[in-house]
């Protein structure tokens, strides 16, 4: 039995320049170099990417969906952050 398991990495791929890196999935690898190589083979076998980021999963801090209320509700009643909140006469153009 191996003493240590390969850690888990999250893989982000930019599918073409101009687009952001997007989360594609995860994989196990001994280190960052191997994670990049494995990500190439696992997630971009058909030209799905031009750039890959890998980050060890343990380094990601995620919000807890059970606290979504406190976390996201404060934005819900702030309609004045949207342009449609403001009343303008119909004659006004280009605004």
């Amino acid at each position, binding site marked *: *039995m*191996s*003493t*240590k*398991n*390969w850690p*888990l990495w999250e893989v982000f791929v930019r599918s073409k320049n101009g687009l952001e890196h997007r989360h594609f*999935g*995860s*994989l*196990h690898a*001994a*280190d960052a170099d*191997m994670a990049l190589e494995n990500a190439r*083979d*696992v997630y971009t*076998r*058909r030209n799905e990417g031009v750039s890959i980021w890998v980050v060890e999963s343990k380094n990601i801090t*995620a919000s*807890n*969906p*059970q606290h979504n209320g406190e976390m996201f509700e404060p934005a819900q009643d702030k309609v004045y952050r949207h342009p449609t909140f403001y009343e303008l006469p119909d004659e006004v153009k280009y605004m």
Partner: protein
Amino acid sequence: MSEEQIKNLEAQFEARIARDEKIEAKDWMPEKYRKTHIRQMSQHAHSEIVGMLPEGNWITRAPSLRRKVALLAKVQDEAGHGLYLYSACETLGISRDELYEQLHSGKAKYSSIFNYPTVTWADMGAIGWLVDGAAIINQVPLCNTSYGPYARAMVRVCKEESFHQRQGYEIMIKLANGTPEQKEMAQDALNRWWWPSLMMLGPTDAESIHTEQSMKWKLKRKSNDDLRQQFIDQTVPQADLIGLTIPDPDLKWNEEKGSYDFGDIDWDEFWQVVKGHGPCNKERMNARVGAWERGEWVRDAAMAHAEKQQQRKEKQAV
């Protein structure tokens, strides 16, 4: 949490799924949902991994370079599909090591079709055409399943899978149009893979114990019998087209229901193979466990190298 609170959460959970909302890894979910998903997703991943073995058998003996690169790419895809599914499964809080352990100890199942031998090159054709064909029918509805990580993995799997079926059918076309011996080889492969492929779509609805719950969670959109009928109806004309005969004397077009009637499936054989008494169950597990054990020193060496590099980096930073 009190029983009342759990009931409440469960009701909210079921309502979310009914509204077609996706469930994500950190969301609250009933224990049974988690367990059922771990079971199905890991079984699916194991099937991809074990599924490489019967085809790996023919990579070195493919009849041309064209066939060889295609088969290699297909087997590589299967490794990839296994990895997408394992990592999706890990989001439910089970480790990769536990998943492997379950496969290697025989606790977890994989698709029983991979316990049949691949004795001729035509089997590569039949597997792509029939086994991948049946798999696609099973998998396409899963792209809309309720568990987000599973659905996303399945979108990727399905996108890649259609080349698998086409390359298999192309092998069959070539053989069916070849010499009498080649055609016979294709027919023989169809004869051997037809019934196991029908069984792949699962026990009859009357026998299927998980169907109702799985339908509710969108782990399943159609019943096994419906999927099987769909598979038969779309495959029979493909066999006709290349002059091969489906090995079922009771197969007959039923004008009234607009689909084929077919003969009885030998479910005893199915359960025998599931229980470990198929022609290759032992061989497959030995190959898989052997590969894992023989690879241990490589995994350890990679880890040792990574640690050494890390230490060197830290030292330089001081």
